[in-house]
Structures are given as C-alpha cells and as structure tokens.
C-alpha cells in the first residue's frame, strides 16, 4: 500500500466509510469527521508512519499540516515522509 492508500484507509476507518467512497476533493465536513475524529485520524497517521504531525487543534487553519481536504492531507503526509527520509 502506498502513502495515499494508507492515509485513505485511516480516514475511511475514522469516518466509518469504505476506502472506495473517499475522494480526494472531500473535506472533513463531507466525510462527517468532527474535531475528535480529526485528532484520532492524525494520531493514527502518526502511529502508522511513525512521524510527528504538526497540528494544533486550536488553530487548524494555521497549522503546517493542511487538513482542508483528503488530497491535502495525503500531500502533507507524503511531504512529512519525504522530509524524514
């Protein structure tokens, strides 16, 4: 599984959806993910990729980690994986 598929699998599990139902243009609201679901997703990403996601729930927009859409989250994770390597 590549990074994209793994991120989608994590988000799908949190959103109680099938990975095939997740599109990259979907927002958190489209997915029905609330703030707790988002921090759980970020925790799962950190665990799965063994990295630290720079995200502060107080100001999600200002965080380096872009959570505006599924696609943005995938890109952000890919960048973190690259930076670590």
């Amino acid at each position, binding site marked *: 599984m590549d990074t994209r598929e793994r991120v989608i699998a994590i988000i799908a599990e949190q959103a109680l959806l099938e990975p095939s139902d997740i599109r990259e243009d979907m927002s958190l609201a489209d997915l029905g993910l609330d703030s*707790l679901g988002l921090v*759980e997703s970020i*925790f799962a990403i950190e665990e799965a990729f063994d990295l630290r996601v720079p995200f502060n729930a107080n100001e999600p927009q200002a965080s380096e980690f872009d959570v505006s859409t599924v696609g943005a989250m995938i890109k952000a994770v890919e960048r973190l994986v690259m930076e670590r390597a």
Partner: protein
Amino acid sequence: MRRVAITGAGTINALGHDVPSTLQALRNGVCGIGPLTIRDADRLSVRIGAQVKHYDETAHFGRQQIALYDRFTQFAVISAAQAMKQSGLSIDEELACRSGVLLGTSGGGLSTVDDSYRSVYEEGKNRVHPFVVPRLMANAAASAVSMEHGLQGPVFTVSSACASSNHAMGLAFQMIRSGMADVMLTGGSEAMLCFGGIKAWEGLRVMSEDGCRPFSATRNGMVEGEGAAVFVLEEWNHAVERGADILAEFAGFGMTADAKDIVLPSADGAQRAISAALADAGLAAEDIAYVNAHGTGTTANDRVECLALAKAFGPAADHLLVSSTKSMHGHLIGGTGAVEVLACLLALREGVIAPTIGFDATDPECPLDVVPNIAREAKVTACLSNAFAFGGLNAVVALRTA
C-alpha cells in the same frame, strides 16, 4: 419538604449484569470473588478480586463510544440505561433542565491512566491516544450519562474514596428535596482492577490474599471489586402523578468527618453519621431492621463499625440485622455504596436480608447479628447503608418502603 422516590435501578457488577441477576445472587449468597485475570497478575501479591466477567464492550457500545469510554464510564452508562428504562421516564425539554446526574467514583478512568503510563514509560512510546484526558477524567461517566439521556441540569462527580457513592446519592437526594432538581440519576462506578490499581492497594497492606470475611474472627482484609449501580431519584409527587412504580423512598442522609486520621476509622465519626441519617429521615433506632454495613473485612473497620452501630442504636442494636455484601461483590471503592443500595432494595421490597458470606468464626469484638452465610427473611420497613472512607469521611443513607 419534598419527598424523594427511587423509581429505577440499574447495575453491572461481579454478581450480575443487571438488577434481577444481582438480587438473585445476593439472595443465594453467591461469591463473585475469584482469581484476577488481568495483565501482569503474576507480578501481584494480591491475585483475587470481584471482576465483572463475561463482559463484551462491543455488545454495548460502538467503536467511537469505546474510544471515548473507559471501563468505569461504560459500567455507569450501562447501569443508567437500565435504571432509566425501569423508571419509564420520558425526558421532555422542560424536565431535561430540571434533571441531572451525580455519580461517585474514586479512581475515575484508572485503567486509561495505567495503559497510558505503560505505553510512555514501559514501552518508551512518545505519544498516547488523543482521548486519554476525556477518558480518564473523573466526571467522564457522569457526563456520558448526561449526554446519553439529554439531562441538562446539575451534573457532576463526587470523589471521596469509599464514601463517593453515598455522598453522591445523598447530595442528589438533597437536591431533589430542596427543589433544585426533579430527577437525578445517581450512584457510582469504579473500575480499578488493573495492574497499577491493585499495586497501589497492595502497598497499604490491607488486602486479603484469600477472601473477604467481614466480621469474622478470621478476616484478614478487603477484596476489591468493580462495577456500577445507578438509580433514578425522582420528586415524590412527580413519580406518583405519572403512575411510576416507586421502588422505595430515599428518606435521609447523614455525613460527618472524623478529623483524626487519614486511614484509621473512628467510631465516633461513624456513629455521628448513622445518628444524623436517622434524624434526617425522621426515623427512630427501633424503626431500622437492617443495616448494610461498610464491612470491608479489615480488622479495624469491622470492629469500629460494630462499636459505632452499638452506640448509635443503643438497646435496639440487639434486634438489628447487619450484613456486609462486600463478601460477595467485593469492595467497589467509589461505586460500593451504590451497589449496596441494591441489597437494601432486596430487604425493603422482598423481605430478604442478603447474608455476610465467608463467615467462619465469631469475633467478640463484632457482637452483632451479621446474618452469617445464609440469607434470612425479615420484615424491613426502613434500613441504612453505611460507607466510611479513607480520609475519615462517613456517609450514611436511609431508605424506607414506598
């Protein structure tokens, strides 16, 4: 003054996963204590407890609830749902604001704390699950119950060690009596049977390694249990007007502090709490046929409790039936008083006194009728339930037939 009815009861504990099975076990003198099946039990010197067995959290909760609910919260939510169902209450918008939740717990989400410490200290991990705080906080159970049933009035948690539940129920009773609320879900919940939880208790050297034998000369300590019980308390006329089945009247409450020692109990403080509960309920010593004792099975508690009862009841102590059901369901610490109210309901409603099991030798320092080993029939129109906590805090509730 407004009166307070009990119109619903729910529980999950080592004796049963609901009220009928628990009452049946109390009647039959069933022992819920057995070998502990928890992680690293082989590193414990105390290896027995009254665990909730055959429990599958996925049968009660969805994945998102399980992520947020520590075991003590799960027990409270399950118990509250049973109690609400039995009460037949429907909470409309107006009643929601006049209804609340007041639960006791001593350890809160202790297993969550234990698991998180393990992962950061033992396993060397640098992050914990994001819901550690909302799981471990002591008010997690009360808040979850308020959310499940939409109760928007007074909601909070009382933590006073072994007296937590009695303090919670006593305050909930006072809130309804004084007009602050019309309905309160109250009781307590505890789930301390994890490695760190038992280790802490081991340190104090008050735990038995072989069984809980309250008031018996062979007693050698307490045995921890886990679980919850929750009751629906309701303003009397509100219950009558909607035709509710009133299980019993919550009649009075007394609380005192020893102001002496952080662990050793005092007969004086306990006696004053017992007398205060009687006075608050407008009951005479002769009116009480049954006392559910604190009866932990430690040398100190049982001796002091017998002394306190003898002082508070005077000659009436000779006819008193006193039992400690901790011999069956273990000591649920912050949840114990709530589960013990079930034994009071059994006495008031069915005329059955749950026994003190494990009793095998008379102790001259405990000269009361402790209903040894076998349940007894008795007519009970009023009863008390004692709770005496570390910290010298005493809380006694008085109940009366409906």
